[in-house]
């Protein structure tokens, strides 16, 4: 009788440790090929850094963390299939990532159907945390409402009176326009938008638009032209002296080092923009340490900003599971609501109602530095939602 009790005890202990040995699986989807790879690859690097650090410290709840990584190919249907695969085949406990708004919404839909928590680390579409909100979706990226609000605030601060408004004609650009228009009366009541132009997503030729802006007589531009769109605009507008007399206030993170380092001496004057993270400036004591580890992993001091977003996603996943003491999606979801954690960009809290983290961005003018080939944001002010 004692023997069988002992056997049973060993069996239970064995089963217990068997569960304890099972790794926690975090699934992640980013574009790793094609046009989105510019953002997806650095984001994944930040994600991987966080996983490495977690495992070095013993993992989550004492269990090792396994990261299962896939290319979302910037295609919503493909991302949807791959996310389902992560859930049904790889049995992940949580999914992170996404880049474009369409992919984010597709992943959110899978998350809702399969009842698995999804943390959107980069998609900015406001819908995700408003009409398409549900129990299992969370966002640690910023959103177009807040970005628009900040841009309107800067328009007021810089005393713009006649504004040319440039947005890319797709979901992000249209959402950002809504965000700006909502906030403009509040922050810059005397400002008037004299021209609105909407180049197409993926436009490489901005010559149809540049002369129109120059002829419109505006004293400032509010722009949502991100990445290659901004770069192409600069190259095509620079010969005409475009940036001499116009203030360019831009969302879309063209104040990041990636863009500054890419353009170097070509980066124009009079630009005020944003970045999620700057390797050379921090607003949190933990930033220097994070930056050092990231620089080591990527073999360069001048690290891309997207890594921080991938990193923060993992931090939240880990913190929520620790708090819930479980990987059960309902419990993790409940744990995420209202959860505050420290990150390389400061303390962040996820709103219990909207599931949106109050992540901010660095905003500031891009100035020439005598000892550098590229411009830097100075002063870089971290602007965060309340």
């Amino acid at each position: 009788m004692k023997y069988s009790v002992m056997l049973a005890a060993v069996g239970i202990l064995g089963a217990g440790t068997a569960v304890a040995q099972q790794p926690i699986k975090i699934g992640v989807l980013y574009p790793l090929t094609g046009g989105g790879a510019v953002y997806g690859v650095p984001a994944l690097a930040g994600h991987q850094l966080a996983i490495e650090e977690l495992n070095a410290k013993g993992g989550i709840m004492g269990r090792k963390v396994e990261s299962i990584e896939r290319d979302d190919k910037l295609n919503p249907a493909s991302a949807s299939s791959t996310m389902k695969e992560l859930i049904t085949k790889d049995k992940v406990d949580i999914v992170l990532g996404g880049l474009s708004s369409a992919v984010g919404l597709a992943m959110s839909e899978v998350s809702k159907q399969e009842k698995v928590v999804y943390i959107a680390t980069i998609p900015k579409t406001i819908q995700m945390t408003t009409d398409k909100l549900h129990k299992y979706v969370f966002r640690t990226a910023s959103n177009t409402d807040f970005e628009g609000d900040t841009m309107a605030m800067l328009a007021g601060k810089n005393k713009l009176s006649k504004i040319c408004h440039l947005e890319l004609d797709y979901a992000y650009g249209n959402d950002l326009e809504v965000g700006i228009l909502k906030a403009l009366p509040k922050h810059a009541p005397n400002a008037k938008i004299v021209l609105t132009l909407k180049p197409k997503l993926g436009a490489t030729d901005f010559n149809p638009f540049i002369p129109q802006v120059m002829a419109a007589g505006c004293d400032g531009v509010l722009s949502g032209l991100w990445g290659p769109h901004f770069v192409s605009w600069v190259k095509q507008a620079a010969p005409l002296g475009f940036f001499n007399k116009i203030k360019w206030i831009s969302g879309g993170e063209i104040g990041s080092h990636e863009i500054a380092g890419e353009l170097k001496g070509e980066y124009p004057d009079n630009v005020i923009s944003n970045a999620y993270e700057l390797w050379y400036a921090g607003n949190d004591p933990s930033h220097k340490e994070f930056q050092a580890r990231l620089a080591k992993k990527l073999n360069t001091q001048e690290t891309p900003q997207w890594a921080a977003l991938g990193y923060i996603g993992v931090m939240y996943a880990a913190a929520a599971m620790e708090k819930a003491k479980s990987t059960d999606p309902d419990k993790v979801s409940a744990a995420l609501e209202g959860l505050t954690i420290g990150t390389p960009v400061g303390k962040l809290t996820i709103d219990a109602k909207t599931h949106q983290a109050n992540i901010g961005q660095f905003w500031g003018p891009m100035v020439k530095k005598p000892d550098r080939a590229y411009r830097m944001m100075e002063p870089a002010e971290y602007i965060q939602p309340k």
Partner: protein
Amino acid sequence: MTLTMFTLNAFYGLALAMNMFIIASGLNLIFGVLRVINFAHGMFYMFGAYITFTVAKSWGAPFFVGVLAAAAALGLIAFAIERLLLRHLYDREHLMQLLFTFALVLLMSDAAKMIWGTDQYSVGYPPGLGGAINLGFVVLPQYQLFLCAIGPLIAVAMWLLVDRTRWGRVVRAATQDREMLAALGVNVPMVYAAVFTIGSALAGVGGALAAPRIALVPGMDATIINECFIIVIIGGLGNLWGSFLGALAFGFVVQFGTVLAPNWQDVLPYLLMLVVLLIRPWGLLGRPETN
């Protein structure tokens, strides 16, 4: 639209057309002679731009050395591909060549990723072409003026090559009847190799010349390939001046269309092709295929 605006738009349309023509002329040559639908032509364009970046920005060479390097490199790559792989497919079903070029796109995109990473790059204007010329009522960027000059030069050079040289006659004959040509003792495989090489080198040059004006990003091959096909088709397959005309139509329609009807930006080239094909089923200067 004021006179200034009209002139500006016409000028920009022309510059765009010339840049597109250089790339499209290569596609037209390959397509016209070899009947190969080369999906990878856009990749060659992208490689041309990236190679120019490496040579001109990273190695510090002058911009035009970069352009020449792009042409040479793409020529070499194309020659290797043609001799080692493509030539085995000429006798096959034409559609399988499509599959081949599709595989090429996949391989080259990863090759680019491995060589250059996923960062964005920028090539500056060559010195002396980075400013603008003030004509009083209108200000024109120098680099675009340069493109407007280079485009017709390349067109004329190609026309001379294909129309006025013996080699050109051989190429035209290869389009009509390659068996006869081979029977006459011409090394047809070498003609094919040369055509593929020159056509691809042109794509590389097009990419190199486009580089100062745009951001170099992964994925830049995707739109270009469509636009090139459109230009070649609306001009008339295999016709050099057709491609020139097609490029002009493209440039003006896209430029003016984007200004006047911005909502249609995404589909302007396709609308243009639709209209042209419905009115002239063989393209503007094309002739009905006999085989």
